[in-house]
């Protein structure tokens, strides 16, 4: 309930942003990829970013992660300029196969984040087990990533990110490579994980339905260079439900609006 209240406040804009883009421009290889992006993400907010392929969604996320530094403008985290990546900000990469250590078991992969956080080795096993249970992988601790399905690998990556105890979770099309059923299951799991931890989320997706289903707010980017083209608050009740939420008249209205926006950008 507390997080619901926080979320409401967050959306209504009475709290200082956790992540703030201020006039951010990024030039890579002589090409302007992002231009004059201004955006505030409030603590506990679930922000979704959609847009045509190549419009700069991943780039925006990497700026938020501190993996890129803006050419001009500023990215702030909790009021401090982001100079480099930090443990409080966890990223779930789309290519989970590349983001996991193939020589470490599931437990070892989660352990990597705990080791980086300086947790004493005696405390790790219990925490690892807890995290693997949280993402629905109990009993798979001894498996190597290559012995797991795509959905399980992505769960494992999420477990490692949760082990960072992040204030902010950045997700780049995390479910893009998964089948529809696995995808819907993971959507609900992420929603409940986020509700439990109160983390701020920036979630990039190609899938407009997914964006509306998950988000408190959806932003659509325009390409060449990347900038904000549409911003839609999502006033759908939580907890969301795969059937009733997707049939909600508000859902359908937002879907229509986003769909028209994307269609217009593609022309």
């Amino acid at each position, binding site marked *: 309930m507390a997080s619901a209240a926080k979320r409401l406040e967050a959306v209504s804009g009475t709290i200082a942003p956790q992540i703030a883009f201020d006039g951010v421009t990024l030039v890579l290889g002589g090409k302007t990829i992002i231009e004059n992006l201004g955006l505030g993400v409030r603590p506990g907010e679930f922000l979704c970013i959609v847009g045509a392929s190549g419009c700069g969604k991943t780039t925006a996320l990497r700026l938020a992660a501190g993996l890129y530094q803006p050419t001009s403008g500023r990215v702030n985290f909790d009021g401090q300029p982001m100079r480099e*990546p*930090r*443990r409080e900000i*966890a990223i779930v990469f789309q290519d989970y196969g*590349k*983001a996991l250590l193939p020589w470490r078991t599931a437990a070892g992969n989660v352990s*990597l984040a705990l*080791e*980086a956080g300086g947790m004493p080795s005696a405390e790790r096993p219990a925490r690892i087990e807890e995290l693997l249970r949280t993402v629905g992988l109990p009993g798979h601790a001894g498996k190597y990533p*290559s012995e797991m399905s795509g959905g399980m690998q992505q769960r494992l990556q999420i477990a490692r990110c949760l082990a960072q105890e992040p204030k902010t979770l950045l997700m780049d099309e995390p479910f893009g490579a998964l089948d529809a059923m696995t995808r819907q299951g993971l959507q609900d799991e992420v929603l409940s994980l986020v509700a439990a931890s109160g983390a701020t989320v920036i979630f990039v997706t190609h899938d407009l339905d997914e964006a509306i289903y998950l988000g408190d707010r959806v932003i659509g980017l325009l390409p060449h260079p990347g900038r904000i083209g549409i911003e839609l608050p999502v006033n759908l009740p939580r907890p969301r439900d795969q059937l009733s939420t997707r049939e909600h008249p508000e859902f359908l209205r937002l879907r229509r609006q986003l769909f028209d926006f994307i269609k217009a950008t593609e022309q």
Partner: protein
Amino acid sequence: MNRTALVWRLASFAVAASFIALWQLIANLKLVSPVFLPGPDRAWAALVRGFSAGDLWSKLAGTLEHMTYGWLAASIAGIAIGAIIGSSRTMRTYVAPSLEFLRPLPVSAIIPVAIAMLGLTQAMALFVIAFGAIWPIMLATIHGFAAVEPRLYEVARSLQMSRLAVIFKIALPSASPDILAGMRLSLTVALILSVVCEILAGLDGLGHWVLLSARAFRSADLFAGVILLGVTGYVTSVAMSLAENRLLAWQAAQR
């Protein structure tokens, strides 16, 4: 699977056995003078005699020592230098080509240089063996470090891992299949160079044993030494494979 493996094993034994039989036949028929070619029977007897009455044990120990020290020195230096070069793009661009140029240089070319600088000493042998054995390890390490998945470095950055942790937890394990393959190649190089150095510098070892036997026309002893060298090469390479399989168990899971 097990069955075909057994058949192959049996077939390879059969080949070896017929090879030895052929050798015995040639020796018995005196197709080659017994002064130069002893039969397997005489070679075996010389081997047993060398171990029980002679100093073959200490010769074997000498060769193993040269080989091991040289190889270990090459491994440590090769991995360290390879890691430094491989983890920096600038170093790779500027240094790697000259390494590729140096590598095909026959090590025998630097032996006179080493002798001139260090004399006919253990230090010279160690230097020559390490110098020859370092290349496969160093080049494999450079390649392994260069091929680390960039995404993993980003994971490391977002976890704010220290430089040392990145090397030991990400780069080295990721490069380990390459490095171990390089170390296995180097093992053979180290054995060959041990023998060469022992022959040239008269250092205690199988090379020296072989040289003395040849000079004295004790062909059976000569062959005993050669057989022992072959066995040494085989056993060390099998041991290396076993170590590789253990260390790279995660790769078996990948396939």
